[in-house]
């Protein structure tokens, strides 16, 4: 799976949230840590539900965390 058109600021938001670990985020979202790694590296586009959960974990709206770049 090549790079997706869905870009994100997950790394920055994790940093802002007291260096939240990928495992902590994965536990909150209900996915594996490897999936968070793939999303963060923009190699996998999460489902809408997972994207909302990630944004909610940071207390941010969806479009603050994810954006689409054609």
């Amino acid at each position, binding site marked *: *799976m090549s790079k997706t058109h869905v870009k994100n600021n997950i790394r920055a938001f994790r940093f802002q949230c007291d260096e939240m670990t990928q495992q902590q985020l994965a536990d909150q979202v209900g996915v*594996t840590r*490897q999936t968070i*790694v*793939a999303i963060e*590296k923009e190699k996998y586009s999460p489902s809408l539900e997972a994207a909302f959960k990630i944004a909610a974990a940071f207390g941010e709206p969806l479009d603050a965390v994810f954006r689409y770049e054609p």
Partner: protein
Amino acid sequence: MDMSFREKSAWGSLIAMGLFAYWFFPAAFDIADNSNDASELFFLSVGCIVGLIIIEVVYQSLVAATGSAESDERDALINLRSERNSGWVLAIGLFWLVGHIVAMSAVEALEPMGGLLIAVWILFTLTVSEFAKLASQVWYYRVDAG
């Protein structure tokens, strides 16, 4: 390497399937081509399949015991894509086999295929398609992780 449970599971199954094919098919094709002894092929098949099951059960139990056996949406997507690749391999293999059987009955110059040989080719096609599925899973997991 940092791997999820599903990826470790795919690696184990891929290696087990490779070992099964390595041991089984040279002997099975030899039996089907030369001795044509159905009971010998049957016992070889049972032995290899039981061996494969034992290896899989032991390996998957060890992997499950060392971490959580959870899966998520990415695992499901990778599984779907891998199943699609496996389906293509299976379809191509079966069409080739059916075409070969039809050609043998249509062209007298071709040597007819025995029932045992056809059975071994069907097993071979099924094994290759399963191998393609597992290899695809490993590939998709590694590409994402890289």
